[in-house]
């Protein structure tokens, strides 16, 4: 069992608190030094000089979302890999079971990883990993002019 050592974690806490204090103090110091003369022009949202239209909080590319999902999948996988990775090759355990433990643990995790890899393959094959998916738009407009006439000028 991994026993968390409280004092070790207090060091970490010190780092965190220290960082926060540092930034806060810095901000406070800067506040004393810096000017504060806001005006409307200054406070507008920067859009390369154009006036902002609408809100930024709209919809964005769905693919970001898919990436997040796949990330989640693997990140969670890694949660399981970490505890496993420190015991599967434990010298004493492996030697105590004539290697059975190691092979068992490896097989188990292989199955797990392969299933997840299958998930990745699925997403891949279904095209969710392609950032720019070619989308052929078939128009249902029926023109009197034959298509070949267009193609002639297209090229």
């Amino acid at each position: 069992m991994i026993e968390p050592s409280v004092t070790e974690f207090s060091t970490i806490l010190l780092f965190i608190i220290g960082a926060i204090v540092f930034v806060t103090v810095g901000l406070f110091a800067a506040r004393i030094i810096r000017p504060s003369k806001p005006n409307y022009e200054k406070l507008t949202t920067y859009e390369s000089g154009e006036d902002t239209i609408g809100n930024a909080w709209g919809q964005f590319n769905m693919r970001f979302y898919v990436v997040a999902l796949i990330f989640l999948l693997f990140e969670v996988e890694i949660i399981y890999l970490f505890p496993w990775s420190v015991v599967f090759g434990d010298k004493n355990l492996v030697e105590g079971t004539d290697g059975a433990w190691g092979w068992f643990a490896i097989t188990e995790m292989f199955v797990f990883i392969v299933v997840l890899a299958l998930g990745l393959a699925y997403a891949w094959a279904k095209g969710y990993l392609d950032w720019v998916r070619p989308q052929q738009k078939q128009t249902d407009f029926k023109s009197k002019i034959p298509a070949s006439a267009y193609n002639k000028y297209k090229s």
Partner: protein
Amino acid sequence: MPLNFVLFLGALLFCAGLYTVITKKNTIMVLVGVELMLNAANVNLVAFSRFDAVGIQGQVFALFVITVAAAEAAIGLALVVKVYQHFQTANIDEINELKG
């Protein structure tokens, strides 16, 4: 650290989560509330795990909970996106076409 503190933290998180789930109208906030509740349970599980005579079942449980929470959140957000596409809102009160 006394166990009570941790349990109290858990209870607090749980109540906060439950409160969020019940009062918030935005679906995403509700999901956030659910996550809070799950983590309340995790806090408890890990805390109790120290007193586990057999092993670290609580910690193992917490790992699984994290996973499941992730899956749930993933699907939850996917659904929210879908709902948003259809309803242009994520407000749970405005999504009420199904009535009997």
